[in-house]
C-alpha cells in the first residue's frame, strides 16, 4: 500500500512533463481546418480554454484530474476522454491479456524445455528461433501473417473487429505474442539453468525425485521470479494496446486512439491515455510485488 502512495509523485511528474511537452510541439488541435474564420477559431479556442495562458490551462487540467475528470476530447466532439478510453480499453485488454497468456505458456514451456537440453540440438533450435522472434518486429510479422493466412490461404479475415468474432482476434493475438514468446523463452531458459545449478536442486535429485518433479515442484517457482519482474511493465504495455498491431489489423483499441490523438494534437486524449498507462504500470508493479510475496516465503516475512 505504501508503494502505491509513493508512486503518486512520480505520476504527477509524468503528467506535468507530458502536458508541457505536448504544448511545446508545434501545431494545434484545429490546424487542419485551414479555412476557419478568425472569429470561429477564437470561439473554439475560448470554448476549450486554449486562449488562456498555459499555466492557467495546466491548473485547470490538474483541477479536473483531481475530480477524476480527464476533460473533453478535441477530436471526437461530444465525447469525453474517459468515454473514449472506456471504449478502446476493453478491446486492447482482451487482445493483450490473451497474448500475454499465450506468451507465458508457450514461451515458458519452450524455455524450460531448452534448459533441460542445455547446449544440445533442441536447446539450440529453440534459442535460434527465439532470437529470430525477438529481432523480427511486429510490423514485419503482422503483414506477413495477413499475406499468408488471409490473402493466400483465405483462412482468416485480414482485419477488422466485430463484437465477439474470435477469428478476428487470432492474428493480432499471435502477432503480439510472438516477440513476447521469444523473449520469455530466453528469459526462462536462462533462469531455469541458473536454478538447476543450485544446491537445493541437487538435494531434490539426491532424494530420488523424478526429473519432472524436480523441475515442476522445486525449480519452477524460483525460475519464475525474473519473469515476474519482466511481466509487470510488459503486461501494462501490452494490454494498453499495441499501436502498430491495432493500426495494421484495424482494431478499435486504445493504441489506435493514441496515435490518432497524437497526430491530431488531441491534447486531452493523449494526456488521458498517458495517465491511464502510468496508472496501469503502477498497478501492475504492485501486483507483481504481491505475487513475489505469495511465491517467495522470504519476502513474505519482511
Amino acid at each position: 500500500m505504501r508503494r502505491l502512495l509513493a508512486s503518486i509523485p512520480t505520476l504527477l511528474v509524468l503528467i506535468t512533463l507530458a502536458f508541457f511537452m505536448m504544448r511545446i510541439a508545434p501545431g494545434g488541435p484545429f490546424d487542419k481546418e485551414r479555412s476557419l474564420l478568425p472569429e470561429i477559431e477564437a470561439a473554439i479556442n475560448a470554448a476549450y480554454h486554449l486562449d488562456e495562458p498555459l499555466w492557467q490551462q495546466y491548473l485547470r487540467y490538474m483541477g479536473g484530474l483531481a475530480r477524476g475528470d480527464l476533460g473533453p476530447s478535441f477530436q471526437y466532439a461530444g465525447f469525453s476522454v474517459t468515454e473514449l478510453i472506456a471504449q478502446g480499453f476493453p478491446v486492447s485488454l482482451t487482445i493483450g491479456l490473451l497474448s500475454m497468456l499465450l506468451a507465458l505458456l508457450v514461451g515458458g514451456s519452450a524455455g524450460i524445455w531448452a534448459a533441460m537440453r542445455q547446449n544440445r540440438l533442441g536447446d539450440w533450435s529453440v534459442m535460434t528461433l527465439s532470437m529470430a522472434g525477438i529481432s523480427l518486429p511486429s510490423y514485419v510479422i503482422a503483414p506477413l501473417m495477413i499475406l499468408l493466412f488471409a490473402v493466400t490461404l483465405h483462412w482468416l479475415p485480414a482485419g477488422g473487429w466485430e463484437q465477439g468474432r474470435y477469428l478476428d482476434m487470432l492474428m493480432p493475438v499471435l502477432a503480439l505474442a510472438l516477440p513476447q514468446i521469444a523473449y520469455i523463452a530466453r528469459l526462462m531458459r536462462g533462469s531455469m539453468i541458473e536454478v538447476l545449478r543450485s544446491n537445493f536442486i541437487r538435494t531434490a535429485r539426491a532424494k530420488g525425485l523424478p526429473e519432472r518433479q524436480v523441475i515442476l515442484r522445486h525449480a519452477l517457482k524460483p525460475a519464475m521470479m525474473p519473469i515476474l519482474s519482466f511481466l509487470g511493465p510488459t503486461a501494462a504495455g501490452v494490454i494498453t494496446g499495441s499501436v502498430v498491431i491495432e493500426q495494421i489489423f484495424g482494431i478499435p483499441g486504445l493504441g489506435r486512439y493514441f496515435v490518432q490523438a497524437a497526430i491530431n494534437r488531441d491534447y486531452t486524449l493523449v494526456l488521458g491515455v498517458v495517465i491511464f498507462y502510468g496508472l496501469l504500470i503502477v498497478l501492475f508493479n504492485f501486483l507483481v510485488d504481491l505475487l513475489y510475496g505469495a511465491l517467495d516465503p522470504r519476502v513474505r516475512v519482511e
Partner: protein
Amino acid sequence: MALLEVDNLEISFRTPEGELRAVNGLSLEVGAGEALGVVGESGSGKSQTAMAIMGLLARNATVRGRIRFDGQDLLGLKPAQMNRIRGAQIGMVFQDPMTSLNPYLTVGTQMAEVLVQHRGMNQVAGLAESARMLEAVRIPDAARRLSQYPHELSGGMRQRVMIAMTLLCRPRLLIADEPTTALDVTVQAQILELLGELRREFGVAVMLITHDLGIVGELCERTLVMYAGQLMESGPTAQLLSRPGHPYTRGLLDSRPALDSPLDVPLAAIPGTPPDLLRLPPGCPFQPRCPQAFEACSRRPAVVERPGGVLRACHAG
C-alpha cells in the same frame, strides 16, 4: 560381499582446457552398518566419488570402473531405476545446510515428498512420519517445524532437517559430505555426535567425507586417505591416527590443530600444492611434495596390503 563396493573408479571431466582427471583408479568398500571416513585435501576427488555413487555427476563427466551397491551395479542403471535407490537406500547430506534446502517450500513439504515418492504414503501420513523423524534427530517442537520454511531455521537446525530427511526411508547407506564444515564449532560437535547415535539407532552405514582427520576418529572405525583421486592409505582409523604409514597421512596429521592449541596459531600445512589434474604426472601424485621421495616414486606405486588391515600406496613402504 560388502554393502558398497567401488572398484577401480575413474572420473574425468571434459573441460575447455582438456580432460580433468578427478578420480584415478580408486577402490573402496563400506560394509553394512560400518562407518568409513574419507579424508583428503580440497580437490582430492572426495565429493565427486560420492556424486558418482549417487549418480549425480555433472554432464561433462565420464565414469569408468564399477560401483556395486548391495550386489547391484549402479553405473549400469537407468535413471528411473537409480531414482528408486537414491533417497531410499542411499541418502546424502551435503556440506552447505544454508542452501541445500529449497527456500520456497516448507520443511514438511520437502520431507513428506520423500515418503510419498518412495513409500507411496499420502501427504498426511508422510507429515506424521516426518515429525517423528525430526524428533529422532532431536529437534524440539517437531510438529511446528514442519510448517516452517528453511530461512526460519538456524544452520545447525537445517542440517538436522537434512539428516532427518535422508533417514526417512531408512537407507542402508548415508553419505555425509563435510556435513559440519559450514557450522559453528559447538554445533559441529553436536551434529557429529548425532550422526554417531543415529548410526547405532538405525544401523545405517556411513561414508563420512571430511578434510579433518580429527573428525573421523570419533565416528569411523575405518578411514581412507585420498590424494589426486587415488588411494594413499586406508585402514583402521586408530591405526592410521597413531601410526600413519604414508607420508601424506603423516602430513595431514601434522597439519591438524591440536585440541588445546589457540585458534590463531597457523597450521603447519603440507608445503606445496596438489597436482594439476589436467596434467597428472605418471608417478606418485604426492612425490613433488613428499619429504621421503626417491627415484622409484616417478612410477605409480601399487596399492599393497600391510599388516593390521592397512592398504598403502607408497614406494617407501
